[in-house]
């Protein structure tokens, strides 16, 4: 029983890491209806930038600030060069554009900073601590706290501020939002910066465990089923989806893997997502859209 709970808790905490990547995605989807495949590339880019700055001898907070500025510049560039030209195009076109964008960002990150694996120390060791006879990784707990804080801050931002209101307006109807004087371009730049910032936090937490390397950008593939289960528009959905995916994939690996063969972590979340979708086609917390002819 203890073993089961340990696997479960480990899975839940790993799921929070997936949620972190998914949240950045939800931000962009809510503010512009863009299905942003480049979120994983953003995680790689921001973590790599941060680590490379630290390795060049910058202190933590300076590196953090410079990375944030770089992310802002990236957001401006993305808005200027890509999004601005694709206003009112179909969602599939926008999705494919972010696919192209993810190639550019990945290539750029590795051209500038090199392809080797960087170690990352956050000052929190990955050693386990004991709770009622169950071992939990310190780093996992720390990430859970960070994710929790981030969700609270972002939810407040969305529901309590004027900015959040205009975000929701843009997501609902970009044309109407523009006509009442909301500046679409500014909104996009801010949202992509914030999404980049969320990606940076996710990248640092993941990087502390796995090392900062190319595989970080593949985390987007873990975040997709999370989003699909949680729904594209809900931040709390991203958290719940992450918990479900994290816990179930670890449990499946241990209990199902013995029967049908191991290594099923790659596809199991997707199979799970299909089952969820067949029951609720727009995700657990997603908004139901009504199609009109």
């Amino acid at each position, binding site marked *: 029983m203890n073993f089961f709970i340990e696997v479960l808790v480990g899975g839940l905490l790993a799921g929070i890491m997936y949620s972190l990547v998914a949240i950045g995605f939800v931000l962009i989807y809510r503010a512009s209806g863009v299905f942003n495949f480049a979120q994983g590339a953003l995680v790689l880019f921001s973590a790599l930038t941060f680590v490379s700055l630290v390795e060049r001898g910058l202190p933590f907070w300076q590196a953090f600030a410079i990375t944030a500025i770089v992310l802002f510049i990236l957001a401006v560039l993305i808005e200027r060069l890509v999004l601005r030209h694709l206003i009112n195009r179909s969602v599939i076109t926008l999705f*494919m554009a972010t696919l192209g964008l993810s190639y550019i960002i990945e290539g750029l990150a590795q051209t500038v900073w090199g392809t080797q694996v960087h170690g990352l120390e956050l000052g929190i060791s990955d050693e386990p601590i004991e709770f009622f006879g169950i071992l939990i990784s310190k780093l996992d707990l720390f990430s859970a706290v960070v994710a929790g804080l981030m969700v609270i801050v972002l939810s407040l931002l969305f529901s309590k501020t004027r900015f959040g209101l205009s975000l929701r307006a843009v997501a609902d109807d970009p044309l109407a939002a523009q006509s009442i004087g909301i500046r679409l371009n500014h909104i996009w730049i801010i949202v992509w910066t914030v999404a980049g910032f969320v990606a940076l936090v996710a990248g640092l937490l993941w990087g502390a465990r796995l090392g900062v390397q190319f595989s970080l950008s593949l985390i987007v*593939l873990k975040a997709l089923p999370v989003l699909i289960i949680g729904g594209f528009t809900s931040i709390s959905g991203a958290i719940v989806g992450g918990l479900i995916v994290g816990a179930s994939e670890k449990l499946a690996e241990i209990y199902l893997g013995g029967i049908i063969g191991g*290594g099923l972590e790659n596809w199991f979340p997707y199979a799970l997502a299909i089952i969820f*979708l067949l029951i609720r086609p727009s995700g657990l917390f997603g908004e139901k859209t009504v199609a009109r002819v």
Partner: protein
Amino acid sequence: MIFFSQARQITTDYRSERRLFRLKQDRWVFWAVLAFALIVIPRIGTDYWFSAILVPFLVLGLAGLGLNILTGYAGQLSLGSAAFMAVGAFAAYNFQLRIPGISLLLSFFLGGIVTALFGVLIGLPSLRIKGFYLIVSTLAAQFFVPWMLTQYGWFSNYSASGVISAPKLEVFGQDFNTPSGRYLLTLSIVILLGFTAHRLIHSPLGRNWMAVRDMDTAAASIGIPILRTKLLAFAISSFYLGIAGALWAFAYLGTVEPDGFDLSRSFQILFIIIIGGLGSISGSFLGAAFIVLLPITLSLGSTALFGQGADQALLQNLQKIIFGSLIIFFLIKEPDGLARLWRHLRERLKLWPLRY
């Protein structure tokens, strides 16, 4: 000197209206290209051209055509094309292996059928799940298929390395095992399937696909059977991808292994149809030509500029940046891809040398 004049080319019956090429000049150009590809190229091409450029170009073009049927015509986004190719390759291999004396073409065909059935299975959620949510089932296929093929030794006949060499290419007692033979075999299959695709797209089924693509709710309300239309798109698209996969393994690589059919291959095929042109048969091949030639051009260019010592990792990253930029460029400037550029050129030739 008006090359593409349409003067006095009036269709008077349905048969001529539905021809492959309505313009006489188009027909001439088409037959000339076909004759060139079938008769002249096998005599003048070098082995390098056949095995490194022409065969992968044809196979990727066929795969692009398969995805274009699903995405470009029927509007269903798929990120799992490579999984379908893998199913086709392994199914064809197993038919060859387990049915003694089966002809190569038949095992290709059966491989395509198996892939089509698999495609229907993957497409089943498409009635209930729409838009982006659907990429989950194609991605599930993309991760599940390679896992299954490596997990269960039966598929690769318990080969220790998981890599198996494809059987000899022999059709009707003819040996196609030379580079030019592989090219001719691939080309013939591609021509046959290309014609079929053209016929399908201009059939009522093809029009139903486009109606579903443009707006499935509206299509349903005018009585188009949505589920059947979507599933047929999945089946036929998968059939094409399956054949392409079998050709990729048998005629191009000479080995059958799951590793070559990963997510990046799926993206590659998606890029082919974006760059070539969504919803266009010729676009699939233009896109494939582009994708095959770009890395070769890049590496030739870098060798010319920096000599042999060019950093491979850097080159790969630059290639990524260039691909990404091109995709965005095409999406912004020419959403209909290279196929549209070709049509523009034809419009110009219609009046040439006059401007308007």
